[in-house]
């Protein structure tokens, strides 16, 4: 079954771009261009991952995220934050509020696909033995 991805970003050009890419990579993609309609679509469609822009008018990515975490059907949905603000504070906060990853704009489409692939993979990453090669 194809994985469902929801993009919530007020920049239509970028959303469409990511959508084309992800569809080409075999995902089912929908896009919302503001927080409230994004939340609506999220609770309707129960996507496998959400790409969430941080800076949006009216309701920013962190607010949307907080609502998602409270929603019954969306609380466990993995969120990947997107932002043109790559400052350490934004990055740190994205992690702290439970974001699975943070992608700085402008992103390489390959990076977005790689992150989505990883996020959608149900298996948790295998532990790796630590060591010092010589």
């Amino acid at each position: 079954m194809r994985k469902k991805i929801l993009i919530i970003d007020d920049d239509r050009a970028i959303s469409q771009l990511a959508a084309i890419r992800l569809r080409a990579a075999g995902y089912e993609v929908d896009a919302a261009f503001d927080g409230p309609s994004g939340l609506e679509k999220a609770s309707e469609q129960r996507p496998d991952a959400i790409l969430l822009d941080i800076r949006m008018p009216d309701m920013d990515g962190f607010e949307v995220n907080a609502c998602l975490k409270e929603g019954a059907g969306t609380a466990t949905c993995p969120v990947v934050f997107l932002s043109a603000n790559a400052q350490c504070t934004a990055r740190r906060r994205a992690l702290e509020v439970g974001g699975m990853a943070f992608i700085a704009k402008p992103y390489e489409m390959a990076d977005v696909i790689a992150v989505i692939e990883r996020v959608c993979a149900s298996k948790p990453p295998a532990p790796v033995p630590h060591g010092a090669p010589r």
Partner: protein
Amino acid sequence: MNHSCQIAVLIVEDDEVHRELIASHLDRDEVRFEIAFAESCSQAIEQLASRTFDCVILDHNLHDGTGDQILRIAHDDLITTPVVAISTSIDPDVMITEFKSGCVDFIAKRDAFRGRVLANAVTQVVKNNRTRAAVERAGASVTMIEKAGAILAFNGDDPDSGLSHQSIEKNLQLIYEVAVQTIQDGVVLIERRSRVVYANPAFKRLLGLSDESDLPGGPLATIDDVMTAGAAAHFRRFDPQQSQFESWLCSATGEPVPVLIGQTPVGEHCILCAVSDLRAIKRQQRELEEKNQRLAQLYETANRFVDDVSHEFRTPLTVIKGYTEILEQEITGPVTDEQRGFLWTILDRTRDLAQMVDDLLDTSKVRSGCFRVDRRPQRLGDIVASIRPSIVHKALTNHVNIHANISEHLPLVFADAEKIGRVLLNLIVNAVKFSPEGGDVVIRAKPGASGEVQVDVTDNGPGISKENLRNIFRRFQQVGDPQRSSTKGFGLGLSIASELMAMNLGTISVESEQNRGSTFSFTLPVNDPAVVARRLLTRAALTQNLDDAQSAVERSAIAMLLVTPAHGVKCSDQLRSHLASHTKTMDLIFEAADHRSMILFGFSSNPERWVERLRDAFDEADEHPGAVKMETPGFQILGSWSASGESTQAIDVLTKRIESSNNVESNPPPNEMSPVGGKGERALA
């Protein structure tokens, strides 16, 4: 002959030969001696009464009396002409008699007839006398300055000798007085740590008074009348070791006057003070501070502007690049070869622009200390692969071949993959820029010396001159090349690269030969805690100014913490990411032997406080709405060591805590924050 000075001399001598001899010795180039003679006491008195002489040369023994008799008579007649006595006798008694009776100089004849001794003596006597007369003429009615002027004016007559020593010494007291009266600094004499017994005009002016007015408190003025309590207290507990201090005077208008007071004890009971006005300096200081503040604000504004502008550039760049890629990859339909070529050019230049924007942003991050570094075990092959998309088209559009030669059995490195990727990309883009058409850029990675991996990026471009090599890692330095104006950037790339390498405890260097090409190399420590920790210590010892501005005290001690995740937290990687965002650039994070806990190794003179700070950071993070519970982990202090003497012990403990196994071929832990591309492609273009 031009005589600048004329001296009238009366020679009193009864021996005719001696008379002529004396006259012939009165010879000085710049002085015209006008000579009169007297053969006896009576003649001498007569002459002196009838006209003015500047000087009398008096033989001691005359037939009608001795020199001292004439002197006495002259004195009684109020004749003040200075007298130089000469005598064949060198009997001290004679000399004393002459001096007692008022002569100003005494010369034995055998000396007087040697060279210009007599002429010089007479000239000096006359000058001193004239000075004294001038000063006396000036008298009490005129100012000190005029008195001093009189002295200097007279001495100015004599271009040969200038101010004579004798003259200065004789008038030293006057000169000091003039100095004290006219100096711009206040001079105050304080008696018994309280009473102001003397204050010069400058001091009065400091208080806002006129030169002649009395001090507040009149003749009985005390220090409390003229200065603040703080300054007065200074004098009460007078410390002879302290030669000066800053304080305040109380001016007549009530406005405090900032002053620098220099003090020195005089005798047992007095302190002499020089008081300098600091108002102008303080004002200038204030103005300078204000100016500095304004400049700092401007600088801040300019930086913020660059930041904002760069940010604003990023989004349109994403769009341009993204859609171009979609067209180029024929996702929306086929394109002709010609069209594809154009699209590559768009992509290439867009990447250049994106790179410049990134450089600008990185520079500001380095400047603001906002660069977080997340060092972990990494494979170099993965880092090279992650930047592959960025360089493929660059190579194609510039008709340059890029070869990667990454040794398969490279040990893991301990580095921030994203930042090393940036460095590598930077070096490759530079190499491509300066390569001729059909040129080759080679990326080589090989084990380097003593626990490091070395990466070389070689081009066969024009090379870099020795002069340019020296400055190449400095900010805004560019290698000028008029033929390649299209490849201009800001000159930030290499300075950022060297900052990023330093953060990764690596080094960066360049070798170049003109017309042959250049090789930029960087090294990274292998994933061996002992190697990494030693590099950290070396870097700290070499760097005075660390990114985190840790103090020297802080850096004098090494501390090690064991961080155990709260129960139920399985993914050590999440703990690592959290720790990375809560620690400083110079703190190292290693995975402990249990693959669950982390070990923090860093500089801290107070490990308890370090733990406290980390706990706070974790607790604070939980307060954000919607936060996933990353429970505050447990912290255990594993020890602390002196950075200078006990680093070996510290590193021993560290290595024991981290089970070392040789896992060259194993995968690195997955990296949450920086997506990793394909694994280990060898041919890039």
